[in-house]
């Protein structure tokens, strides 16, 4: 942010009003309600808390949620990276539409995505019927969870890598080529190091989003306890059994995980910005 003239403090009006309202509204809508989660867990004994967050069923749900999110985020790094590359560097028919469609998972409600993917991958669906003879079952298995999470994480990698790739200086590539590097060497030694922080940021964003995802997953997952039950669904199951404390304890674990990811993402983004700037010699 550019340094601002001290004088603007005197000239610009509305500081108290705008900041006051911002902090008031933030507290009312976000901070106070969110603090309820932590206060609720303080009413539990440590033992009860520990039992609630480490039961066999919830451990299985962590493994599925975090495992499937990791796989989905990795798939998005690979294919999202290719999509970003193709959109920035090549010309082909329909490019503009493809570019606009990348954001579909942000705009399409998760429940709609969920039923559409389930219809496609169930045994008589458009895609499922071709996978069935191969012995691959997607709908109502953990594989279905990966498919749904890949869908919702798709824009993150593309949209973080795209601007960085646009800023890669062509001069550097030309310099590498004139020094005798082949295209692959130029990519591996010049371009890839530049976009690596953005790829990692996109990975972390997609992963963070996937761990909390609910709507698109529950339709395709089958939701069998110990097998295809994600953690957010288990929280709802606990709530429906009126085990508020148990639900809240698991929610706290998930919240702490997301705060940790938030911290990681902030650090990665700072790194991306540093890498993105041309180094001064």
């Amino acid at each position, binding site marked *: 942010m550019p340094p601002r003239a001290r004088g603007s403090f005197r000239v610009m009006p509305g500081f108290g009003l705008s900041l006051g309202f911002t902090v008031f509204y933030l507290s009312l809508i976000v901070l106070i309600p969110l603090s309820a989660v932590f206060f*609720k867990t303080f009413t539990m004994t440590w033992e009860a808390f520990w039992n609630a967050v480490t039961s066999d069923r919830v451990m299985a749900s962590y493994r599925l949620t975090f495992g499937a999110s990791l796989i989905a985020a990795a798939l998005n790094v690979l294919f999202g990276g290719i999509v970003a*590359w193709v959109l920035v560097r090549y010309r082909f028919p329909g490019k503009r539409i493809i570019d606009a469609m990348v954001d579909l998972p942000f705009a399409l409600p998760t*429940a709609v995505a969920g*039923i559409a*993917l389930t219809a496609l991958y169930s045994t008589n669906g458009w895609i499922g019927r071709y996978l069935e003879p191969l012995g691959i079952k997607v709908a109502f298995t953990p594989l279905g969870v990966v498919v749904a999470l890949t869908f919702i994480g798709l824009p993150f990698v593309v949209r973080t890598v795209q601007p960085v790739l646009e800023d890669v200086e062509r001069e550097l590539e030309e310099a590498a080529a004139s020094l005798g590097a082949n295209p692959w060497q130029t990519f591996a030694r010049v371009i890839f190091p530049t976009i690596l922080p953005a790829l990692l940021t996109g990975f972390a964003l997609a992963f963070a989003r996937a761990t909390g995802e609910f709507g698109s997953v529950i339709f395709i997952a089958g939701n069998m306890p110990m097998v295809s039950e994600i953690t957010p669904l288990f929280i709802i199951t606990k709530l429906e059994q009126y085990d508020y404390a148990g639900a809240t304890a698991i929610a706290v674990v998930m919240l702490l995980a997301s705060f940790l990811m938030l911290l990681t993402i*902030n650090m990665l983004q700072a790194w991306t910005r540093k890498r993105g700037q041309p180094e001064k010699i």
Partner: protein
Amino acid sequence: MSAVATPVAASSSRIEPAYAPSGISEPFWVKALLVTVALAFMTLFLFVPLVAVFFEAFKKGWEVYLTSITEPDAISAIKLTLIAAGISVPLNLVFGVAASWAIAKFDFRGKSLLLTLIDLPFSVSPVISGLIYVLLFGAQGWFGEWLQAHDIKILFAVPGIVLATIFITFPFVARELIPLMQSQGSEEEEAALVLGASGFRTFWHVTLPNIKWGLLYGVILCNARAMGEFGAVSVVSGHIRGQTNTIPLQVEILYNEYNFAAAFAIASLLAFLALVTLALKSFIEWRLHHATSQPDQE
């Protein structure tokens, strides 16, 4: 800016690379392969599901489609969705303008903390966003007894749904406006103020015209999420047919009843909304790009 959220307007500054000398450009077959892989991935994961929604919706013909979206439960779900979005979007719009004014026009301590806190709802699972309102307003919650004593219903009623929607869509407008206003600086406002305009007049005639496209961008994304939210609303709604079902919840109920045609018919309304959102978004990105590349033209 930080956090788990919509990366913004990434595509707005598209610069076609100059034709590369053959020494550094990859062979044709590599290009063809990469484009094919990208198109195949996009088709499989984006286009096919989208087409499937409309295909399933119209599978049994127009008549079934029209009855599905005009039956009373569907109409009441549409109404509730419009109410939830109609309340949460304007509130978060006002908040977004206030927050971006405070953050972009002034320097103060704890600004980066404030930015992180504003993004917080993006990094909370929708299910947990719903859970917090159960803890506050549920029968065993902080305000549960008081609400029961005064016969006020929040949870499993419309107010709970509205509150959860406000929480989920909280950062959308703010995070579009803050970077935009920061990049614009305060010179124009200062000039207006020095020339004697009141604070409100300055905002209305100087700031607002400068941020209108960014504002609209945020509102459109905010609205799409408000109308499509499922997880958080599902926790607080109670799923009472014709009363506390939004469109996404109605989709779920119909789908679980194996009434696929009706579920996809109502889902197609949301898919259509998503397409309109994407089209408007592309248009505004083009406008924003246009505005930044030609700053002197009105």
